[in-house]
């Protein structure tokens, strides 16, 4: 090969150890040739038999779960799936495009309530109502686009807080649609004659299939679809444009990316993810209440993507599993855990323990695991010589700007 410039100026790397400051090749979910960890590589779509086998295994486990785990676990899993869908959406926005949003709970609310209202009030068939609800969430994200397209970073983040507060106001006041403070019961989804509810009773392989067991499969399908779609977006033309907007807005514009339109577009897309997460969570709850869609939910999403790993789909999923399962695990096993106090004994309660662990996890991940939980996996299997050959001669990314 003929390297064009300054062959003189490239010191030879000696120790092929990890830990070069390759900032985050993972932010783009796209493997740089060679540098890849086995697991994730195996999870990529491709023809390699190993990958196919791994996917099959994942699928088998997912299918088997409802036959073995009790309702509590299924429900926890479903919450995690919903959180994962929402987190993927916010990762598209915050991780990939660099736009902060503290208002995502609002779009969950829009999705959940639209589903309820469209199916109960307008009598739409439930699958159609679900699709329409996602679209409504997108439209409401679009209505916010004058803000979402113009503001950046912290300003956008705080501006989106308005969505939470105004959203709550609407949820409480628009009673005919939202049911006010009581919320509304959620009609169960009915797909090809299968009702996602406890009745009519259904027994599969000697296991009673209630609403949670049935929803489990719906959740898996929705999450898989959402993840695959997001990966496609991130690795495709829009993903590049989004990353460039994040890193260098003006350059993006000059390269032909309509920046404001793209910002608004990503916002719409991520609100649709929020909407979908909302529909799923409504189906699990069986009743929508305004209370749930508050600020804390939004903050959880941000913590989720940081813990999991910014900008990647896998990060969102892993983070969501962590953040939404942790408190439930602690509460569930509160009796068995040593740190957890008897009611009223003044010690740390399970809920508090969960919050402390969760706050600490955010801090710890940022301090010790740049790239999040997913980044940790990445680093374990990184570094090939070719990378290093180039890494050696890199000026610090910022130094000429």
């Amino acid at each position, binding site marked *: 090969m003929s390297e064009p410039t300054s062959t003189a100026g490239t010191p030879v790397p000696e120790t092929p150890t990890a830990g070069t400051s390759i900032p985050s090749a993972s932010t783009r979910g796209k493997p740089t040739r060679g540098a890849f960890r086995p697991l994730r590589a195996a999870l990529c779509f491709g023809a390699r038999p190993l990958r196919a086998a791994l996917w099959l295994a994942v699928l088998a486990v997912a299918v088997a779960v409802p036959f073995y785990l009790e309702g509590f676990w299924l429900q926890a899993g479903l919450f995690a799936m919903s959180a994962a869908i929402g987190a993927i959406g916010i990762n598209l926005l915050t991780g990939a495009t660099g736009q902060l949003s503290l208002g995502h709970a609002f779009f969950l609310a829009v999705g959940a309530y639209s589903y309820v209202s469209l199916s109960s009030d307008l009598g739409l068939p439930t699958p159609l109502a679900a699709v329409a609800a996602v679209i409504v969430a997108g439209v409401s994200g679009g209505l916010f686009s004058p803000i979402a397209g113009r503001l950046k970073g912290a300003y956008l983040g705080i501006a989106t807080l308005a969505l939470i507060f105004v959203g709550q106001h609407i949820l409480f006041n628009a009673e005919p649609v939202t049911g006010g403070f009581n919320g509304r019961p959620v009609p169960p989804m009915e797909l090809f004659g299968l009702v996602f509810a406890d009745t009519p009773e259904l027994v599969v392989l000697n296991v009673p299939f209630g609403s949670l067991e049935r929803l489990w499969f719906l959740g898996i399908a929705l999450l898989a679809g959402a993840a695959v779609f997001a990966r*496609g977006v991130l690795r495709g*033309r829009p993903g590049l444009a989004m990353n460039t907007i994040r890193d260098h807005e003006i350059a993006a514009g000059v390269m032909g990316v309509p920046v404001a339109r793209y910002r608004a577009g990503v916002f719409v897309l991520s609100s649709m993810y929020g909407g979908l997460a909302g529909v799923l969570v409504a189906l699990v709850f069986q009743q929508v209440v305004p209370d749930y869609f508050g600020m804390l939910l939004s903050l959880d999403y941000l913590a989720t993507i940081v813990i999991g790993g910014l900008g990647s789909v896998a990060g969102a999923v892993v983070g969501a599993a962590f953040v939404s399962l942790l408190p439930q695990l602690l509460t569930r096993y509160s009796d068995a855990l040593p740190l957890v106090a008897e009611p009223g004994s003044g010690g740390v309660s399970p809920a508090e323990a969960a919050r402390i662990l969760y706050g600490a996890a955010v801090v710890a991940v940022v301090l010790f695991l740049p790239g999040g939980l997913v980044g940790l996996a990445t680093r374990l299997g990184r570094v090939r010589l070719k990378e290093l050959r180039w890494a050696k001669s890199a000026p610090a990314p910022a130094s*000429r*700007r």
Partner: protein
Amino acid sequence: MDGMTHRRGEPRAHPLRRLRMPMRNQPVGTAGGDGLPELVVSEVTVRFAGLTALDAASFTVAPGSVHALIGPNGAGKSTCFNVLSGVYRATSGSVRFGGAELTSLRPHQVAALGVARTFQNIALPPHLTVRDNLMLGRHRLTRAGFVSAGLRLPSARREAVRHGARVAEIAEFAGVGDALSIPVGLLPYGVQKRVELARALCMEPRLLLLDEPVAGMNGGERREMTALIQSVRESLGISVLLVEHDMGMVMRIADAVTVLDFGRRIAGGPPEEVQRDPEVIRAYLGDFGGPSGERGEA
């Protein structure tokens, strides 16, 4: 500032007629052929609060030529680029490129017309690989949106493959073919500059704007870059507008030069002529600017 007057000399002197270097290896009918339009900058003024960065500046870039824009620091060269690429809005005046009036367009609309640029300070997302950076250059030529990319429609895949091949071709041409899968931030400065140029080329531009392409490079790299730009012009026959302080390089490759000072055009014409212009020497070159100047060879 003392009163700068508009210089004599033909402001619209057509540079093509004075080409020092005939475009030898040029495919038939590139230069000025197939309707490559002129870029006509006329009377463009840009004011910022209390400051006139461009003051009724006018010049024309002939189709297929390399036109250099030079002038002291703060003369308004980059501002001019920013107006041409839609980053700044001109206070008054017009910029016509073919049938289009650029001053009323947003950056992405200008890009859509085939105007590509590089930046005085490298503007590459450092975490993206070279390939991704170049693919971004294809943005205006590709169509895949959220839906088709998300669903991985066959059209999007085909598009990615086709344009990926062209990206590889351009990367090879620009000498960054081996770096395609490396995050840009890890590359040496000189290579980054090439990537920027390659990215601009990936837009399949009709007009290429280069802002100080050889700044911060040593003699060897300057030569490389200059040759690359030459080669671009020869292969593609596109117009190039160039800002550069390296007079050696300007002398070598420019067909025509426009000199700005305090936002005004103080001279223009063929390089040798401009170089001898006392006004230009006074305002810009000083005693060091001659062809035998220190930077010398490009």
